[in-house]
């Protein structure tokens, strides 16, 4: 299965001129998400008016709106994932272009480059080796996990829409309360899984940059210069794991509160479980910030290497 969905993030053809539709699909999915959110905003306005006019439909509308709103947010996040898949596909075509172009552009008269070992650069510590370094375990994990996360997440959110309908139709009853707990716990777990899928895709981008960089340098017969894992990347992994664990824990805690006998017992728990579930997503998003910052740093490092090879032909293997 891993091989099957790895095909999604590799180019269908070696022809770099081929147009892939990821961007259009990502924007299309995003537009659907925004449209859904506009419907939810309209539902909220109707609910607010209902409260103002002393009606009794507000709670029903808001329960339904909750389920649909999470669906809208997750729809756009799936669009983001598609955009990242598009970036991954194009990265491989770019790596091939760099390989082919540098072979032509590199001066024939060049020096030896850095010695084998570790050196400091303006982008952080790097390792100079004869062969490309092995994949990091976290990169292997990222490549295996992004797809299952992106499948399970939306499924949970969709199931949450169904339970939100049950919640909406049973306001003020024990069934409604149970459905409210399931909806909130399940949808935020689903959203957490989608964000984890996005994080794993960002990890896959970092893996591709690392592997691609090594591949290009090796193909040119150069010593392989690889950026060591920066602190931002380590913090990214920690935040992502913490966020995912909180997302799972909040789901379990919502289900636990449903074993309580009275609403009075449940209410204080739900008062902090709401922010806890948001905290889980917040940590995942914070990890994504650090992943993007790491990608920017790696890109800066790689451009400096490409520039150096094109200008001086340095980092040759044989002296």
């Amino acid at each position, binding site marked *: 299965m891993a091989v099957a969905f790895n095909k999604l993030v590799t180019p269908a053809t070696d022809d770099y001129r081929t147009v892939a539709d990821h961007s259009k699909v990502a924007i299309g999915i995003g537009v659907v998400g*925004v449209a859904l959110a506009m419907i939810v905003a309209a539902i909220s306005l109707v609910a607010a008016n209902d409260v103002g006019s002393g009606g009794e439909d507000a709670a029903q509308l808001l329960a339904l709106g909750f389920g649909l709103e999470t669906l809208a947010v997750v729809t756009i996040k799936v669009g983001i994932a598609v955009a990242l898949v598009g970036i991954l596909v*194009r990265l491989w075509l770019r790596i091939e*272009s760099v390989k082919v172009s540098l072979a032509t552009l590199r001066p024939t008269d060049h020096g030896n480059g850095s010695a084998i070992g570790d050196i400091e650069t303006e982008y952080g510590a790097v390792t100079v080796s004869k062969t490309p370094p092995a994949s990091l375990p976290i990169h292997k994990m990222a490549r295996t996990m992004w797809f299952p996360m992106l499948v399970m997440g939306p499924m949970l959110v969709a199931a949450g829409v169904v339970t939100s309908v049950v919640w909406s139709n049973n306001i003020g009853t024990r069934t409604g309360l149970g459905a409210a707990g399931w909806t909130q716990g399940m949808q935020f777990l689903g959203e957490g899984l989608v964000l984890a899928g996005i994080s794993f895709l960002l990890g896959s981008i970092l893996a591709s940059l690392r592997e691609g960089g090594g591949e290009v340098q090796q193909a040119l017969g150069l010593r392989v210069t690889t950026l060591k894992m920066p602190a931002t990347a380590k913090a990214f992994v920690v935040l992502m794991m913490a966020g995912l664990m909180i997302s799972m824990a909040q789901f379990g805690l919502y289900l636990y509160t449903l074993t309580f006998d009275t609403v009075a017992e449940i209410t204080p728990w739900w008062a902090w479980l709401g922010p806890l579930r948001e905290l889980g997503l917040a940590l995942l998003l914070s990890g994504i910030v650090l992943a993007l910052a790491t990608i920017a740093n790696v*890109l*800066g490092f790689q451009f400096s290497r490409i520039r150096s090879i094109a200008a001086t032909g340095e980092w040759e293997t044989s002296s």
Partner: protein
Amino acid sequence: MTTLSINDFTTETTAKAPDRMMPQKAGVALWRPMFAMALMGFAIGFILSLVRAGMISNGEDPLEIAAFGHYVPAAMFFGFASVFAAISFAIAKILGESRVGGGSVQEATGTEVATLKMPGTAKAFIVLMAMATMIIHAAVVLHVVAGVSIAAGDWTPVQAEQWTIWLEAARRFGTVLYLFAITLGLVTIAKVIRFQTFRLRQVADRA
């Protein structure tokens, strides 16, 4: 299968590698402060929620509990607005690295420097990000106003309930807009990578 050529990209040509554009400079400078502000917002929001849960358990003043019901989302969504801004600035930083790095590689080969003009997706990314920031921050400020007014007893329960619903709708819609802006930012990165793939081949072919 449809294919593109280098002529399908709108570019500008310069003798030297271009500098970062203003939004990209902002990205470099601001992603860290935004990230720090986000962590603070989340921490404060979660602590306030624990305080509120304690107030509910102890059966304290309902007006105070209702007021805290506005302070908690105010802090959390201050955090979310900041984390989305940090993500957007990190995307701008990536685009900046690509612009400067791509230009410097071309300069190193002794050719003229062709740079992709700002695509429509990048412009829409900035506009939507600004709109979303304003919506979420307005909701955050109004949440605080609502909390203070409720605690002071200035609002009826119906008014308080209506404002809760309006503000929740506003901050949720702001979140959705922000996420869509981020999608457009990522699509722009994909476009830049595609242009660089073409340009590298073109420079090598001319060498």
